[in-house]
């Protein structure tokens, strides 16, 4: 089971969900000690437990391209393929921000564009700090809303190439999404005098 996707998994974007992480990085994860030791035989609740004690997000770092625990758990989730409802629960919870980040990335990788916009945009109000492990191996701070912005607009994050997301305007024109009303639009009593 160690490196195989669960038998009941459905295809995501036309392929095995694990293939959403590129081969090079996937190999690095399979060969890492954390994966072999602690991610073996993990269930979804096991992943939750480990994610609750995560301390940073990130991809692979250092000269040896060591994968972060975040990335290993990400691959594990792709292997286990939790239900949409489970992922909703993990995103909606407020207590564990790294678990939320993990579930958000999973959501972004596996769900349809309309769902992604509808789920991720309200979470712009979460401005908690996240620690990011850079490729060099040092740490940086990023905020949760910046992370969500990355998920919605960038091509890749944490070493994972994000699937192409239809542009919001295209979905609005097609009538599948209402135009976005930012919470900041109602903020008329701004601090600046000008």
């Amino acid at each position, binding site marked *: 089971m*160690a490196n195989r996707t669960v038998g009941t998994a459905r295809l995501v974007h036309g392929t095995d969900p694990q293939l959403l992480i590129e081969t090079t990085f996937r190999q690095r994860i399979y060969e890492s000690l954390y994966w072999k*030791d*602690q991610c073996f035989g993990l269930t979804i*609740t096991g992943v939750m437990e480990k994610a609750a004690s995560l301390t940073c997000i990130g991809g692979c770092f250092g000269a040896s391209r060591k994968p972060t625990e975040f990335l290993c758990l990400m691959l594990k989730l792709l292997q286990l393929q939790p239900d949409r409802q489970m992922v909703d629960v993990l995103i909606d919870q407020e207590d564990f921000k790294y678990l939320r980040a993990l579930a958000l990335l999973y959501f972004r990788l596996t769900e349809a564009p309309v769902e992604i916009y509808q789920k991720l945009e309200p979470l712009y109000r979460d401005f908690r700090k996240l620690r990011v492990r850079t490729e060099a191996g040092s740490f940086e701070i990023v905020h949760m809303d910046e992370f969500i912005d990355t998920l919605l607009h960038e091509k890749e994050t944490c070493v994972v190439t994000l699937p192409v997301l239809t542009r919001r305007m295209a979905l609005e024109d097609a009538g599948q999404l209402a135009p976005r009303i930012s919470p900041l639009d109602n903020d008329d009593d701004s601090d600046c005098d000008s």
Partner: protein
Amino acid sequence: MSNLNAYGGARQGDSFRKKWDIEAYAQKARDREEKLRTDEENEERRHKGQKPQMLPMLENPELLEARKSAINLDKMVGKTQVIQASSAAAGQAGFYCKECDITVKDSLSFLDHINGRKHQHAINRIMKVRSETLEDVVKKLEELRKIKRRQQRIKEGSSDYNFYERVEMLRKAEQEKKRRQKEAKRKHRMAKQTADDEPDEMAAMMGFSSFGSKK
């Protein structure tokens, strides 16, 4: 053999000789032969490029489970060990797997072995994880929340929380001690009373309560 020994006396029998459980050892030999045969077959198959023969089905296998604690690979570093090798593999340096009788030199390869099909089969596990439901996830989340809250309480309100708690505990402990002392005293008094009663019976019957002077 006749019942008489060389000198014409009765034979004692051979109850002093060690008895071997022939059946058990025969079974062992059969298992070993079987294993050698399957190993040879797998060797041939591997040469041909085929997959090895399937392992026999397990009776009541358990589902795959994650390890409860991390494997400590550094356990034997710097330590000297007297080897009492039960087999050729057990005597070698490296990571020894008891269930499969294999020594692996490399820690990552050892983990690969531990996580692999053959070893899991040997410990009666199938390579499938328990599939979980939404309720499991919700319940787990609640558990994690509780743990987090408890940790926060201990960390944040550490001085206050512990102070009142400790005062309370000490007060209760003192009360308990007092109560126990009272109980012990009462019992002691009761015991003494009954002890005094008995000689009175004797005195009523005999006229004296005990031997020995009253000095």
